[in-house]
């Protein structure tokens, strides 16, 4: 009897003692396979298009641009192929990856910040501020002294000014409250989207209206190496910062009081988060418009797979987001070729049904309590 009891204890001990290690292995496996899928996705996305190019050529061209590799690879491709791959398709695919990953990461953190599973990167009004500025640029040529960067810089400034207003409104007595932040964001968004509609209504020409609509739905068609660097850098730095603060993010999910009693200065941390997230989202919206849905659903997919711990959710969502955004853009390019769809239309049309499928499964609670 006693022996059986101690055996059971030892077994239990072994099983649960192994759980941390198992989790680590599981996470590594997932990250490795997602990275593999991402590389495959990038290859395929660059191959696909009106001019088909073999995967071997794709990688040769890409690798030939790396330092020390260029000389070792024999150039057996045409100048046109090189142009298509290196100057047109690759930057576009990479921009998709950067923005997809960035939106997913921002989505994860914003949901933790406002402790609401419905939050997405635009809930604090970033996209609505950017839209006002972008429509002004597209329809009325505002900021024209900035030349080809007028749209990006205008959108970025618009995003930051709207978030600044939300930030100020959300503070009472110097403290920031999650619900107030959410409601301030929603109301500023409403006001600004009304302003955007007004601007579009007063537009002087039809084509401009279509361009503005297209921008608002989001697109990677403006991708060039030149405008990839800033969002790439911002997303990378932001991601590293958030990963470093993963414990604080976890604690924030426990609620204000608990987070405080775990040694976190919640008020200061919230404020820093709002600033970091706005910069991230602003930089992305500036180059690609407001692409919906990725920032809302990828965090849930990631949590469904690896649980809520940010140490795991952040990298997994980033990879998921990148993969999804690239495929959405491939579809946007190819479905009605040579016509192009806004990528936001694709993410919503494909992501929506998938999200509903996930919603119907009971194993994941979406942050709504028990089941």
């Amino acid at each position, binding site marked *: 009897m006693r022996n059986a009891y101690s055996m059971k204890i030892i077994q239990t001990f072994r099983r649960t003692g192994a*759980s*941390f290690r198992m989790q680590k292995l599981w996470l590594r496996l997932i990250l490795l396979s997602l990275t593999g899928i991402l590389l495959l996705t990038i290859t395929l996305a660059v191959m696909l298009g009106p001019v088909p190019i073999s995967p071997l050529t794709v990688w040769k061209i890409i690798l030939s641009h790396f330092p020390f590799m260029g000389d070792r690879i024999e150039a057996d491709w045409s100048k046109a192929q090189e142009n298509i791959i290196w100057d047109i398709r690759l930057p576009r695919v990479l921009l998709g990856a950067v923005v997809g990953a960035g939106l997913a990461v921002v989505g994860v953190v914003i949901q933790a910040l406002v402790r609401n599973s419905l939050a997405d990167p635009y809930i604090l009004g970033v996209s609505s501020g950017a839209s006002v500025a972008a429509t002004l640029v597209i329809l009325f040529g505002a900021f024209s002294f900035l030349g080809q960067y007028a749209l990006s810089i205008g959108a970025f400034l618009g995003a930051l000014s709207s978030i600044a207003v939300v930030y100020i409104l959300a503070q009472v007595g110097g403290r920031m409250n999650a619900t107030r932040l959410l409601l301030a964001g929603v109301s500023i968004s409403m006001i600004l989207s009304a302003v955007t509609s007004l601007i579009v209504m007063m537009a002087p020409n039809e084509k401009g209206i279509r361009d503005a609509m297209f921008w608002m739905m989001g697109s990677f068609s403006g991708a060039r190496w030149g405008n990839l660097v800033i969002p790439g850098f911002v997303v990378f730095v932001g991601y590293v910062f958030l990963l470093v603060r993963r414990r604080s993010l*976890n604690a924030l999910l426990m609620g204000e009081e608990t987070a405080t*009693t775990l040694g976190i200065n919640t008020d200061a941390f919230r404020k820093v988060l709002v600033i970091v997230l706005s910069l991230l989202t602003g930089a992305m919206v500036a180059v690609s418009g407001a692409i919906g849905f990725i920032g809302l659903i990828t965090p849930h997919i990631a949590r469904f797979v690896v649980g809520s*711990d940010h140490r795991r959710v952040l990298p997994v969502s980033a990879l998921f987001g990148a993969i999804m955004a690239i495929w959405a853009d491939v579809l946007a390019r190819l479905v009605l070729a040579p016509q192009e769809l806004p990528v936001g239309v694709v993410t919503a049309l494909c992501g929506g049904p998938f999200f509903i499928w996930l919603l119907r499964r009971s194993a994941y609670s979406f942050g709504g309590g028990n089941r």
Partner: protein
Amino acid sequence: MLTMEDVSLSILQKPIIKDISLRVFKGQFVGIIGPNGSGKSTLLKTLYRVLQPDEGGVELDGKNLYQLPSRYVFQRMAVVSQEASQTFDFSVEEMVAMGRTPHKQAFESDTDEDRAIVDQALLRVGMKEYAERSFMNLSGGEKQRVLIARALAQQAEAIILDEPTNHLDIRYQLQLLELLKNLDITVLASLHDLNLASVYCDYLYVMRDGQIVAKGTPEDVLTCEVLREVFRVETDIVIHPVTGKPHVIFLSHS
């Protein structure tokens, strides 16, 4: 190790607690009792830094609590509050691992030592087998035990609990208090059940209208006069033959 000296706090000009002085010594199990709205939660909140007192001093090991770095404080003091709202689900193990937060620098990763501490904490509250279960799907009693394990993983010398036995069946109430009693650390808890407080606490503070109206051992404090004044109930108090502690029998309203 924890002291409050003439602490007063008003919220929106309304005084919530007044001239509170309180002392918790190392290893003691101290209870706070009092009717609803008497200021128990507020008192505890000023002790764990969620609310700042308007007047008076709060000290941890002889140092001003509000001037200590937050990580320092919560390496020494853990809290199980009433805040129960959960947004996203965590496994039991992850919940307990959060107790390591005040001990970790941002760039540090979790070490084997952290894992051993988490394991040990789960073992002490008897929740080892639940390590991989989802926290949300646990019963109320199990959740409280996990939260206590988190406090243990914090390796604090003192635990503050705000009505830890609320919403628990009597069996779990007893289990929980038994667990706390046997943990061999300093405990400060607000409690509803006078008889449980009598059995488990070494020292009791009685609150009414934001003030401490009586303090002392259960034998000193749990008297017909005090309970009549504080809770407005008529009682008969006997020394229970098994526990050797005062046992309160409620008679009727006065």
